[in-house]
Each structure stands twice: as C-alpha cells, then as structure tokens.
C-alpha cells in the first residue's frame, strides 16, 4: 500500500467511526430540535414536568425561602417566584427585601421594584424604584405614623398613601420589617407548589437538546458532537473531492 492510499484509507476509517458515533447523538439532537421549534404550538412552554427525574438544578430546598409575615398573610420568594401564602403572585429575579400591609394593600418590595397587590393576590401596580428613589433600596420599614419607608444606603424615605412621592425621614422613626421563617405547613406547601412548577417541558427539551440534562459536563458532550459533525462535513467533502479528482 502506498503512503497516499494509506492516508486515504485512514481518512475513510476515521470518517466511518466518527459518523457511527455521531449518528446516534445526531438523532437525539435533531429530534429534540424539531420538537423545540414547535414547543409554543404544542404548549410545552406552559406545561410542567412533575416527575422527580425532570427536576434537575431548578428544584429547591426550604432554606432557600425568603419570607415576610404581612398582616395575616405570608409573602415568600423561592428563586424567581413570589408567593402570597401558597398562591404564586408574580415572577421576579430580584431579591425580596420586605413586605407589609399598607392601606388595604400588600406592598411587596424587591430590590428593583415596588409591587402593590390587593389582599386576594391581584396586582395593582408594579413600579420601578428608579422612578421614585435615588437608588435601589435594601430594606423596608414602617414609620411610627404607619407609613411605608424604604432604606437607600444609610438614608430612609417614606411615602404617603398614593405612593407617588417619597420624602427623606429620620431612621429613629422607622421599625424595620424583618424576614421570618414560615410555619412548616406553609413551607411544605410552598416547596410542593414550586417544585411542581419549576421545569416546563420546553425547558426539559432544551436541557435534553443542549446536553444539560446530563449535568455540568453535558453541554461539553454536545459541543463535542457538534465538533464531530463539523469534522464529518470536512472529511466527507475531502473524500468526495479526492474521488472526483
């Protein structure tokens, strides 16, 4: 066998083995990709995978709950979800910094927004802090006059019942609202509510498509398959070119 034909034989062999190896994964990636393309039509973005095996990194534990007792209701945050008792009232990534009942409303403060809900969990208004305060606040408090107050750096500001304007006040007038651990029964109901709604079928498919369902290194496996497919395209073209010549 000449040196040239040895080289050609070797390229053929590598092309064949890489093709066989990548073939199985290609089926997995293409099928999951096709379904993902139509996930909205199939409503996969609104249906939740409830089996334990589907709940990968997104499932959560009791220690992750941030909760405030506001009048007779619990306002809690689990990851990006905010609950009134066990009812999900909004989705927000910014940390919950306080909640209080004010003027017959549940006032929920996250680091980026002020959320006003009625007592049945219906949103009245969401207001970006940058529209009201000089910077994002860190704590919520109640003044001696039962007004709402927010701490920005070392300063405190309070507002009237319209919550349209905020005025500087002295810290002595403020009782800071502190987070509290909710009762076990609320904690368990929150965890059930969250874990049952943490992974949509679309997310599950996406995890499957990108390889992340296999954990931290799954994405590298998919990268490897992508590189093998790119290599196959090049080796296939080279083989075809040599035959054509």
């Amino acid at each position, binding site marked *: 066998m000449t040196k040239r034909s040895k080289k050609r034989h070797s390229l053929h062999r590598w092309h064949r083995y890489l093709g066989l190896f990548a073939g199985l994964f290609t089926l997995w990636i293409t099928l999951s990709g096709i379904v993902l393309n139509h996930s*909205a039509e199939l409503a996969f973005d609104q249906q939740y995978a409830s089996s334990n095996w589907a709940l990968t990194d997104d499932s959560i534990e009791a220690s992750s709950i941030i909760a405030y007792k506001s009048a007779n209701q619990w306002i809690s945050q689990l990851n990006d979800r905010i609950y009134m008792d066990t009812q999900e009232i909004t989705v927000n990534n910014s940390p919950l910094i306080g909640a209080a009942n004010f003027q017959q409303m549940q006032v929920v403060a996250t680091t980026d927004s002020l959320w006003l809900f*009625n007592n049945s969990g219906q*949103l009245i*208004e969401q207001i*970006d802090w940058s*529209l009201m305060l000089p910077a994002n606040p860190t704590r919520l408090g109640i003044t001696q006059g039962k007004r709402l107050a927010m701490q920005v750096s070392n300063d405190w500001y309070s507002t009237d019942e319209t919550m349209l304007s905020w005025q500087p006040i002295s810290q002595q007038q403020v009782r800071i609202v502190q987070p509290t651990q909710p009762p076990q029964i609320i904690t368990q109901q929150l965890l059930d509510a969250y874990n049952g709604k943490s992974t949509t079928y679309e997310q599950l498919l996406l995890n499957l498509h990108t390889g992340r369902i296999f954990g931290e290194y799954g994405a590298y496996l998919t*990268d490897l398959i992508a590189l093998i497919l790119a290599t196959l395209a090049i080796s296939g073209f080279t083989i075809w070119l040599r035959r054509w010549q």
Partner: protein
Amino acid sequence: MKRWFTLGLLLLSATSLFAKGVYQTPEAFIQEGFQGEPPAPKVIWLSQPLKETLANILGHSYRGLRVRYWGKGNRTAWVLNEIGKEKPITIGVIVRAGQLEQVTILTFRESRGGEVRYPSFTDQFINAKLKNDHDLDKPIDGISGATLSVRAVEKTAQLALFLHQQTPFSNDEAQ
C-alpha cells in the same frame, strides 16, 4: 487551540449574550423625555370597560389595576412592561398630541429578539396614531426571528396611545 475554541463558542452565542440588558433606566427615560424637569407622576385607575379595551389591544388581560404616567402640556410618558415570549420587555413611550413621539426599549430580558431595541426599528413608530379599531395608522416592518418581541412593542405603543386618550393631557391636543 483552547483559546480559539472558546472564542468560537463565544461568537456563536454572541447574539443571545448581547440581546439582554438594561439600555436606559426608566428614571433616565422620564428625565430625558421632559428635559430634566419631569412633572409629578399621576395614575389612571382601570375601570372594567377600560380593562376590557386594554385586553382587546394586548390580546390578553392587562396585569394591574392602575397605570402610572407623567404628563405635561399635550405630552404623556409611559413606562410599560409587555411579555415578548416569556419575559417582560420594559418599554418607554412618549405620546404628544395623540401621536407617538418616542418608543424606547429600556430593558430587554429575553435571549432572542433583542433587535427591537435598535432605532431602525423603534423610529418606525414616530408620528403613528391610533385608528378607531385601536390599530396603528401606519405599518411597522417586522424583524425576522423577533416576531414576538416586535408584536410586544407594537401592542405597547397602541396601549400608550389609548391610555393617553384617557388622560386630561389629551384635551390639550391643539397645543
């Protein structure tokens, strides 16, 4: 080799990485909209008929019972959120005399469709008015691959024009 591989991966994901972001804070938008002298904010409480009209415009019910705005003369400014595919896009809109003066994407949170933030898209809205059926009176060219984000911006522009009509500042249209 590792460096080139990383660079390649970064380039591949660049579109989605660069799409997300805060482009202007709502406060800066309002300040700029009123040349550094913004009026005090006001609110519109949404009655049931108003909520029904908003739902017709948006294609889903409006989340909230009141809407905050800023008004002076014949101009009103609005900071509204509308979901593109999964996450809210924060959009600033200024209406002058019943016409759109400015549409700005303040925060974009989705991984796809961020092209709506470019002036080449948002400038199309300038001078658009609301027709009787609550549609815009001029066509808006879409962006391939950003259909849902385009739709969210259009709906928000319509919403701001309709809400402007509900404010006392719409009575100053002749100014």
